[in-house]
């Protein structure tokens, strides 16, 4: 069984993207564009929850060899 690779620069950047997205307050601290009546401030932060999962999944695929145990 091969061991997972250590995180490289690409992996760190991928993990940092969702973090930056929810920390950039001046960018998302607005009401418009709203979606289904939900202001931008709220839906922008909400969609980054599943999106962060997608970014982490990509990093998982990059570092953990297929068929690794546990």
């Amino acid at each position, binding site marked *: 069984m091969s061991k997972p690779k250590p995180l490289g620069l690409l992996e760190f950047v991928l993990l940092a993207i969702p973090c930056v997205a929810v920390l950039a307050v001046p960018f998302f601290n607005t009401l418009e564009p709203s979606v289904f009546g939900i202001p931008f*401030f709220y839906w922008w932060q909400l969609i980054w929850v599943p999106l962060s999962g997608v970014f982490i999944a990509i990093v*998982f695929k990059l570092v953990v060899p297929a068929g*690794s145990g546990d």
Partner: protein
Amino acid sequence: MNLVATIVFVALFVAITVLGFVSAHWRKGDMSHLHEWGLGGRRFGSWITWFLIGGDLYTAYTFVAVPALVFGAGALGFFALPYTVLVYPLVFAILPRLWVVAKKHNYITASDFVAGRYGSPALAMAIAVTGIVATMPYIALQLVGIQVVIGGLGFSTQGLMGDLPLIIAFVILAAFTYTSGLRAPASIAVVKDLLVYITVIALIVVVPYKLGGFGNIFAAIPKEKLLLPPPKGGNLGLQSFYPTLAFGSALALMLYPHATTAVLSAKGPNTLRRNWVFLPAYSFMLGLIALLGYMAYAAGIAKLPDLAPYFKQYGPQFAMPGLLLHFFPSWFVGLGFAAVAIGALVPAAIMSIAAANLFTRNIYKAYVNPNCSPAKETEMAKLISLLVKFGALLFIVFLPLTYAIQLQLLGGILILQTLPAIVSGIYTRWFDAKALLLGWAAGLIWGIWAASLNGFKTSGYALHLGTMVIPAYIGLYALILNFVVAIVATVALRLLGMANDQDATAAADYAG
């Protein structure tokens, strides 16, 4: 008293109690070893780990406090969301390495790791004491969730009789944690999470439907509540406080002893990595729960004659229970309230186990009885887990609730000061133990002082830089000071030739 709701509530609580006791036999190991009682034998697979960490981090208090914060403070209360988005990328990079080295050296706590990595029982004890102190008010707060829903069922929560349901709940919790260890919250977490998901999904579908959609809900909220106020005359205000609070809280979360306990009980590092992909599902739910605060506001339930007395007694904390009472039939109210109460037991159990592990390993075994047998060690931990819970109970029965809330706020600032020793240690052995201890002390002292400036009521400190004023989370400012002191002191100790390079771990111990 709401009879139907109470019957459903009690029935679910009894079922959970039985489950808690029988779970001792689940994948049974030799329960006289601490890693069996206190870490479930490090055998939990992906699914159980998902439920356990989810049940552990998204506590019952969260379900009550987050909507309450949004209901009362508006946009600021939404910081819980960026907070939970930040957690998983951070832990993905850090905690699998801790799991691997902990397994290799049979470390049960983060302080065990610090003791081995730096050859310094003193530093390990400082970390352990910080963890225990930060955890105690957190356990006490779990009781608040139970108290609010028992009040919502129509029982008085005043006086000694009013505390009786709480005392019963805690005796049950203490008994099954004592016999079953970490296996009890792990099995209960599965049921608890199902109940929570059912409740939240029902709330999030039914309430906006009855209120005429999200457009109507947000239209009913005053504009100034919906966004963070813009900077005024060089003062960044909430614009800097909001992201630093989210970031600092995310860092603090992974340092809490109960987080370490849940993480180390996983079967392997890939089980954890897989979990960080799927745990955001809980965060999404948390975001929806936060919006319940606005729904309660838009529905105006605080002013309804039948609910107003509750809001008078419990304040904004009644937002979520109030929505359930107003929009749902009694049996469903019972189910939703049971979800909150059972949701309090899972983290409370894990927290008390984590605090017990810390005391036993890093204070009792390190200083009092170094030669104790594994069986004696486990016996000690079980006893301490009882003491910790009893302390939390006394706390909530005899002290005003605001103390628990303020101490929990302070606990976050304190636990953050263990980051340089634990997280840096996972990656590098550059720091010196004495320097880390000095940094820890500096961070603690400054943090407590800064929190005392506003009477421990809020966790913000306004830093004046020239003409700029930058309010930010105290824990984060204290952490910066902590790092600066640790770096300067490490350099000084190395120049003086007084640094200690003892290390029980090797670089290869971290890969996997």
